[in-house]
């Protein structure tokens, strides 16, 4: 639904977005990650037609956003980072107006309005002035205007920034639900949220795309290894570690020093380790078999992917483009 080919955007001499190419297929939910100033908002503004690209071709729903801008815009629902709203209108009036400028006729607006207000749970506030709403509810109003005309594509720039934790959970669920029926491009720098909602992640840094994949595969590619956490009972540490090291495909074993894991392990009376192995060799079964054969207690054996934070940091602080490709 969204296709971007070699798009670049310069603001004067400053290159904000450099040779970006990616595609978002119908029904995909893509998380767009990057540090501040990486080019996320600029890219989104090019896709929605607010800013023209300096070069490259961008189409939405098949319509070129530069030459067939009006057609492209009809298929887009956009929530800008600043969640701009008219503060002196009521929620209902605001949404009605937004429906009108999207070209919705009266019946359609009257049909969608209660549905949308229901979906974002703004029912109690339909006659409240937008200026009086809290940030979380304003955000929801923003989401409501983006989905009102049932667009094929939803583009949301930092949709959960600044909302309190309770509303964040609700908003995230809302976004996941929406993702089932719309194509979505979401930007965020709240990484746990992106890993929770987006099966595919695009990482942008300094104007260039440095990764485009699902988080698990990214993790594998970056680690160059499969990582496994394991908790053992009744074993002597060094004996265990040298046994594992001798197995096929094992790169390294070390004790797990993470605070949370140690706390839980102490409660349960086990010792946690982390094993790095060559990927796709099925080492887990072999490890389990060896541990059981030795008569040790096997309390936990789980694959451990890099967290998105680690992926993100690695991608944006090193020149690891070569590693990905």
């Amino acid at each position, binding site marked *: 639904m969204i296709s971007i080919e070699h798009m670049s955007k310069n603001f004067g001499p400053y290159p904000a977005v450099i040779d970006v190419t990616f595609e978002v297929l119908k029904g995909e939910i893509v998380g767009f990650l990057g540090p501040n100033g990486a080019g996320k908002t600029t890219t989104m503004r090019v896709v929605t037609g607010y*800013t*023209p690209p300096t070069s490259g071709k961008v189409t939405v729903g098949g319509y070129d956003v530069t030459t067939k801008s009006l057609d492209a815009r009809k298929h887009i629902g956009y929530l800008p980072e600043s969640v701009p709203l008219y503060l002196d209108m009521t929620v209902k009036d605001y949404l009605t107006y937004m429906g009108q400028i999207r*070209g919705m006729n009266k019946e359609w607006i009257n049909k969608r309005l209660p549905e949308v207000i229901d979906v974002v749970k703004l029912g109690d506030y339909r006659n409240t002035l937008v200026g009086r709403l809290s940030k979380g509810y304003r955000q929801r109003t923003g989401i409501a205007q983006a989905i009102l005309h049932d667009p094929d594509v939803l583009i949301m720039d930092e949709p959960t920034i600044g909302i309190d934790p309770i509303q964040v959970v609700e908003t995230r669920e809302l976004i996941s639900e929406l993702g089932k029926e719309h194509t979505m491009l979401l930007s965020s720098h709240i990484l746990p949220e992106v890993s929770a909602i987006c099966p595919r992640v695009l990482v942008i840094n300094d104007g260039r795309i440095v990764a485009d994949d699902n988080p698990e595969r990214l993790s594998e590619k970056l680690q160059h290894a499969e990582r496994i956490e394991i908790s053992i009972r009744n074993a002597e540490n060094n004996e265990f570690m040298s046994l594992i090291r001798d197995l096929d495909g094992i790169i390294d074993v070390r004790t797990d020093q993470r605070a949370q894991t140690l706390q839980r392990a102490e409660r349960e009376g086990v010792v946690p380790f982390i094993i790095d192995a060559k990927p796709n060799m099925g080492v887990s079964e072999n490890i389990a078999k060896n541990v059981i054969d030795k008569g040790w207690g096997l309390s936990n054996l789980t694959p451990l992917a890099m967290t998105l934070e680690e992926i993100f940091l690695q991608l944006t602080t090193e020149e690891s483009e070569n590693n990905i490709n």
Partner: protein
Amino acid sequence: MAYVVAAAFVAVTGFFFVASVSNAFAEASIRGFLAGAVFFLILMAPALTMRLLAEEQKLGTLELLLTSPVKEFEVVIGKYLAALFMVFIMLLLSFYFVLLLFIYGDPDIGPVLSGYLGLLLYASATLSIGLFASSLSGNQIVGLIVGAGILTGLSVIDFVSNRFTGNIATILDNLQLGASFSVFDSGSFGVAESGHFADFARGIISVYDIFYYISISIIFLILTVLILESRRWR
């Protein structure tokens, strides 16, 4: 805000009206009112229009507006018509003075009607200039000052044209927006004898004047659309 502006308009023009008909041997005409209205509109047009596009830029709502399937010229025309309608309502309210004239005197209906037509055209021009000024930045004050600046400039252009003779003088003279401010020098409450508004006050509806006001409106509306569209070229 709209109520305050409308009230102020009626109050200020009311003052001019009353002053002009309170003299001995005063005419039953709205000339005093018209002078006041023309003057007040120079202040009011920027005030009414300054936030129309500047606020959209400031609030960020312009981003939503321009990423919706609406054309830039639709946005401009919409805002222009809204402002014009506002002034139209105010003019309607001021019709109260005309009623008073009819009750207490025997006015000529012709100049009254042409006067109001002139005011509407004059408003159209001043509002489009104000709208243009508003589009220049996200700062309402910039909109106000630039708008007021252009309007004042066009209103005192006869001071400038008096310095020249020949073709230049004629061209400048013909840009005169409305009443000249020099009218206040002579201490009489009349509308200036020069400028495109003068004939309307006298009861003459001149195609030439109508053309002037419509052209100014169109020119500045087009300029405003260009400013919005320029976003697409940057």
